[in-house]
């Protein structure tokens, strides 16, 4: 059997796929920003000396690291509304799922960066009479930030790929839009190959760009 | 006695644009001990490494026991040359052993396991036979008390003696030594040289690339001086090291102020 390719059938609906791509980028961007905030707070809690702060933060991180993202999507979309009595838009539920999940991972990135700075740095700065905040801001964070760049970028790429799960909540990101185009054209091969390539081009280009940035940063340091 | 074990003809080696060995001919007789000397970068190690195909010759032929190695064909670049199968090279390497500057012992195996490894995986010797032969070789290099130690726990000199035992266990017809003492602390050089000397007394065929000219003088039947990737001067130890004919050889030797011969 010879398969007749028909890419033009799909490209006629390319505008729908562009809408999807914009949806993907929007979801990823909002979730990364919120995820960083969540991650920063959780990381500070995990580094705290108070058990009351540390324990819930640890539980939060472990829960997200050991459960599938898809469960979080469904939980925020179908389960949480029942508890709070308000229903969420697919976008809201997806952002909640992605930003809390990535927050857990970002927290580990931040914490890892900070604890990787040798004790001698703390001692050296304290010996100069600097306070905890000053040491953190002037000595530790500048060094730690540089070490966080690579794992932070990796995590953000993971998050971007995970946005595809929002299609299961009928949020109009790239995969969901592709499903719509498929239901119009009945051309799954062409549709799904096209969006796979779109993801690939965006992610591959971005990851090479980031590698260049990392390289520059590493050389500067 | 005058039987030729290895015959090299017109050996060339290029690394990209770098022409390191530029046409070397050399014959090694059975039982002969050859010291190869020369400045760093002269190509002397590369010549040795081509003998057991650690490096693939770019041009030229190598005969072992009168048998030409490889088959005529087109090499990777499409140029006419010799091609060598992995099986042929592996078989060859069991007959031509090598000791490296950096020992290259396997860190995850004990001393005994290092020496047994080739016997078991390559020669398919039984475990018991391999163990007894390995123990025998390790006794010879004076390391009977280190059988169960890991290489990481040994001094450089001890590691190099293990490496020698590992090569010996394969019962090679020819032994190649690639600067075996160059990465050792000065106080550890002696113990390794003594082992090599003892092997020389046994009448083994050996080629040694070295900077230890004093040792080379006592060790070698023949000394080969390499410069710019060619054999610049060759002869008995006396001829080359004591009465070198060519200027370049003289200049090289003059740099070694304390000569032990």
């Amino acid at each position, binding site marked *: 059997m010879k398969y007749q390719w028909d890419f033009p059938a799909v490209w006629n609906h390319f505008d729908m796929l562009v809408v999807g791509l914009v949806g993907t980028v929007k979801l990823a961007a909002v979730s990364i920003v919120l995820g960083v905030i969540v991650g920063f707070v959780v990381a500070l809690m995990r580094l705290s000396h108070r058990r009351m702060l540390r324990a819930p933060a640890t539980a939060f991180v472990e829960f997200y690291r050991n459960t599938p993202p898809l*469960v979080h999507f469904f939980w925020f979309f*179908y389960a*949480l509304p029942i508890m709070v009595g308000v229903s969420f838009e697919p976008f809201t539920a997806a952002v909640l799922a992605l930003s809390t999940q990535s927050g857990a991972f970002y927290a580990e990135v931040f914490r890892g960066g900070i604890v990787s700075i040798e004790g001698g740095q703390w001692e050296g700065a304290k010996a100069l009479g600097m306070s905890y905040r000053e040491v953190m801001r002037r000595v530790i964070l500048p060094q730690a930030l540089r070490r966080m760049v690579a794992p932070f970028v990796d995590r953000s790429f993971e998050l971007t790929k995970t946005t*595809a*799960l929002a299609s299961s909540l009928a949020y109009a990101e790239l995969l969901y839009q592709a499903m719509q185009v498929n239901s119009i054209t009945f051309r799954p091969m062409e549709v799904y190959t096209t969006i796979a390539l779109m993801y690939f081009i965006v992610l591959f280009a971005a990851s090479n760009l980031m590698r260049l940035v990392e390289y520059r940063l590493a050389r500067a340091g | 006695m005058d039987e030729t074990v290895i015959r090299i003809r017109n050996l060339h080696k290029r690394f990209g644009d770098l022409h390191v060995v530029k046409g070397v001919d050399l014959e090694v007789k059975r039982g002969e001990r050859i010291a190869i000397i020369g400045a760093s970068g002269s190509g002397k190690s590369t010549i040795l490494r081509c003998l057991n195909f*650690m490096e693939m010759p770019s041009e030229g032929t190598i005969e072992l026991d009168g048998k030409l190695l490889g088959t005529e064909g087109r090499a990777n670049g499409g140029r006419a040359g010799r091609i060598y199968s992995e099986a042929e090279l592996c078989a060859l390497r069991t007959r031509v052993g090598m000791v*490296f500057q950096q020992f290259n012992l396997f860190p995850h195996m004990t001393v005994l396991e290092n020496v047994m490894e*080739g016997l078991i*995986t390559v020669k398919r010797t039984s475990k018991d036979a391999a163990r007894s032969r390995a123990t025998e070789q390790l006794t010879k290099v004076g390391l009977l008390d280190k059988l169960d130690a890991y290489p990481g726990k040994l001094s450089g000199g001890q590691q190099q003696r293990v490496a020698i035992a590992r090569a010996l266990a394969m019962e090679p017809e020819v032994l190649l030594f690639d600067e075996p003492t160059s990465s050792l602390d000065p106080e550890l050089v002696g113990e390794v040289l003594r082992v090599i000397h003892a092997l020389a007394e046994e009448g083994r065929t050996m080629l040694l690339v070295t900077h230890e000219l004093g040792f080379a003088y006592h060790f070698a039947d023949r000394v080969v001086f390499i410069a710019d990737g060619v054999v610049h001067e060759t002869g008995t130890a006396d001829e080359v090291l004591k009465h070198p004919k060519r200027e370049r050889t003289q200049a090289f030797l003059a740099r070694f102020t304390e000569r032990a011969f």
Partner: protein
Amino acid sequence: MEYTWDFTVIVDAFPVLLRGLLVTVELWVLAFAIGLSLGFAVSLGRISGRPWVNAPAIGYVEIFRNTPVLVQLIWFYYAFPIVLGQQLSPFTAAALGLTLNTSAYCAEIFRGGIVSIARGQWEGAKAIGMTRAMTMRRVILPQVMKRMLPAFTNRGIELAKVTSLASLLAVNEIMYQGRLLSSTYYRPLEILTVVALVYFVLIYPGSYLSARLERRLAARD
């Protein structure tokens, strides 16, 4: 508003969830075992000096790493059968997608491990007449296995989470059963929470071991 929890539905639903869990485990074992072996083969291509072996191996790895897994699963279920000329069962498509995806990541782990071994090890083995295959088996892999173990465990954990995506192809694993049950009983909060917990119980031991292993290896170096 006060929500009244009703966990009795879980008692009714549990046998079905357990059956789903079995399918999850089946999917995981299959994809991990084959993914590891295939990944090793791909890594050999990745480290090969021959461009016509090397280039396809790089392409393979990059395509799977730079597109969302969900898109890959959907592609194998809806698009791939068209070129194949034969329908795939949801389970086969999911297993195929997960296996290939895992193999791409494993290939990079193997490659990283193999190239971390000094060239002298290859030479030492070569000099006693060992073939490349023997050297790999007896000298190289035993040295890097320990070093690669945390990375493989992490891969296993990722895979366990990603198996949940098979539910979107209607593979009757635990996530699928969970969604089905929550619409049958109309108790998504209880059921989805329990599904999340089941995943946690399944995955946590692995990530706990992996973290300990990593610490132990780090302490030894």
